């Protein structure tokens, strides 16, 4: 067979495909509501992007199985994905495409603060409601935008709680920590954290001995760790994306850098792949998350079990945010009884969600303040510990949420 005739056949097939797609669309399908979703699905943050994608998928499947949006005649939710590659420029183009070409009614994403910041701006311009599960940079909800809503706590709260934790633990154990090193990825997220760390460190009287941004895609982090070794701090504060979290932890072990306390900020450190790849090198690391598998909320265990059975790993704080975001969207659509962006926006702004599957989150109700920030978002600190020969993330702070019977190892190294 010649190439030309294969080509013709393929063309014929494609034409048939197009025809059937065109016919089946409006004629037979139930009404669907398209939700655009920009995530890092390839590149260094791909694994967290994929986790967010799977959490959303599970929530949407559940919502659709339970009858979709009832006030809209059982309309189904449909997720339309685009890959940001963690690149702000790509994120913006993809958001434009989803809104203009795919005609999505709502947007969600984008995990990276650096991508979410401009992407939300695009959505605001078009008047498309944008629900941000995670991407914690403060300014995302501080631009007076009307269409942007965020589920996760913003970074000033994260940073505030890291310092509260350090203070509480020092009071509890009587250990005094003096010097501090800041090591963070040089994106919007890391630099945003670092800015606030500096102010709080000054206020709480820690001496900063190192202030080091690094590129997430570095092929080698030994230079950074060498600096850390020379600075010899009591406390190391970390913000890392996915892959670099592993590299930095393993390199610290290799170079025998043993700070008394290491506090991470979720993200790469909260990724289940992190423990798998860093193993014992991560022992006694503190990490800050919004949710942990041992959280004491009805349904949390079951949802996590269902998720693990489906995808083979535990939910993380960030995937819970993504999961919850879908229920927040469904709830708003239900109350709006319309897909008109104005009405959906108004319904989102009036959200007061305190029942249903979304309540696996660590707090009791989801409400947005005027800026679109979830007022109640809460944070816990976990410690990586060896529980019966298995590395586990154990909730240690706030003290009333601490896993029963666990004494935090503080400091981790003498």
């Amino acid at each position, binding site marked *: 067979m010649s190439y030309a005739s294969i080509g013709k056949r393929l063309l014929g097939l494609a034409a048939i495909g197009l025809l059937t797609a065109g016919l089946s669309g409006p004629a037979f399908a139930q009404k669907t509501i398209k939700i655009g979703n920009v995530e890092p699905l390839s590149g260094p943050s791909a694994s967290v992007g994929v986790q967010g994608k799977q959490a959303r998928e599970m929530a949407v499947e559940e919502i659709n199985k339970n009858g979709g949006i009832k006030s809209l005649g059982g309309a189904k939710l449909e997720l339309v994905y685009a890959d940001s590659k963690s690149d702000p420029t790509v994120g913006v183009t993809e958001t434009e495409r989803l809104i203009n070409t795919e005609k999505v009614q709502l947007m969600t994403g984008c995990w990276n603060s650096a991508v979410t910041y401009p992407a939300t701006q695009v959505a605001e311009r078009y008047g498309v409601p944008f629900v941000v599960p995670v991407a914690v940079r403060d300014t995302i909800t501080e631009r007076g935008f009307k269409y942007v809503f965020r589920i996760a706590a913003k970074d000033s709260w994260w940073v505030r709680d890291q310092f509260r934790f350090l203070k509480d633990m020092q009071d509890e154990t009587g250990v005094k920590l003096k010097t501090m090193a800041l090591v963070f990825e040089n994106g919007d997220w890391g630099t945003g954290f670092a800015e606030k760390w500096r102010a709080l460190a000054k206020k709480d009287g820690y001496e900063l001995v190192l202030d080091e941004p690094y590129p997430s895609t570095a092929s080698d982090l030994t230079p950074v760790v060498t600096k850390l070794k*020379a600075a010899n701090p009591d406390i190391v504060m970390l913000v890392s994306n996915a892959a670099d979290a592993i590299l930095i932890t393993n390199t610290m072990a290799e170079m025998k850098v043993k700070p008394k306390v290491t506090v991470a900020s979720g993200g790469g450190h909260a990724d289940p792949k992190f423990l798998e790849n860093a193993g014992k090198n991560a022992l006694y690391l503190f990490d800050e998350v919004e949710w942990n598998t041992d959280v004491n909320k009805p349904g949390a265990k079951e949802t996590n079990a269902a998720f693990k059975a489906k995808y083979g790993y535990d939910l993380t704080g960030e995937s819970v945010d993504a999961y919850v975001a879908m229920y927040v969207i469904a709830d708003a659509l239900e109350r709006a009884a319309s897909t008109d962006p104005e009405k959906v926006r108004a319904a989102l702004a009036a959200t007061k969600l305190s029942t249903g599957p979304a309540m696996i989150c660590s707090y009791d109700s989801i409400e947005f303040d005027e800026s679109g920030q979830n007022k109640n978002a809460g944070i816990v600190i976990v410690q990586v510990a060896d529980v019966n020969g298995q590395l586990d993330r154990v909730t240690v702070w706030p003290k009333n949420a601490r896993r029963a019977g666990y004494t935090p190892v503080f400091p981790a190294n003498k």
Partner: protein
Amino acid sequence: MTAVIQAVINGIMMGAMYGLTALGLTLIFGVMKVVNFAHGSLLMVGMFAAYWLIKLTGIHPYLSLLVVPPLLFFFGYYMQNLLIKPVFRAEQQVREPLTVIIVTTGVWYVLDNLALMLFGAEYRTVKTSITGTSFSMGDFIVSIPKLSGFVVSVATAVGLWLFMVKTRTGKALQATSLDREAANLMGIDQYRIYNLAFGIGTAIAGIAGCVIMPFYYVYPSVGVVFDIRAFIIVVLGGLGSIHGAMLGGVIIGLIESVFSQFMPSTWTEAIIYAVFLVILFVKPSGFFGKKQDW
């Protein structure tokens, strides 16, 4: 001062491995006058091959050096023979066949996305007996996987150089690199030489994959991390020059490691490019490049 010496040690070790990633690129360019944009992807293929081999059989990571490079040699050999050669033939009269560059870019995209489809986007590391091991020399710590990588890199460069100057095939490669028409007239089969060059270049990417795997992670677009550096190194050292690539690699490694002791490490990237620009102005042919390469 301790930190600086530590940084120098680390910079030289990493630099030699950067040089190794650039070696295949410079060889293929030297012989074929083709910029192989798929080089990073071939490195990724090498890393995945090493990953699966170590993961599934549990062999010592450096035993993968006996398996992965030969596999990649055939991979590269036949890739050139089946994909690139036809294009090359069509562009016989052109000095620098641009279409081939487009083909290699296509290969890059296909390989990266194939890996994404097969293995998913997640990054993977192997736990081996040497991962995370190091020894102390006084105040300094030397990472064993990186030291081994350094040794293998230097050995590969020396081996390649010996092959190029001592063997008949190596001389044929050199002759083709100097003037392919003349080499053709002397009875050297140009396309066989290209197959060989591509095969060897890919095998070296395989060697690089094996030595990087014990301390780094692999994911489908990992090639990009090393790729851009490899291009700079190749130009820095002189297109087609083996010792140029190694020297270029070590210089990049040292800049990255030592300069970041005095400034935020995000700045070293800018410095690498600044040095690169200066070299392009002062000596456009690189350290060891000939003025008129072809």
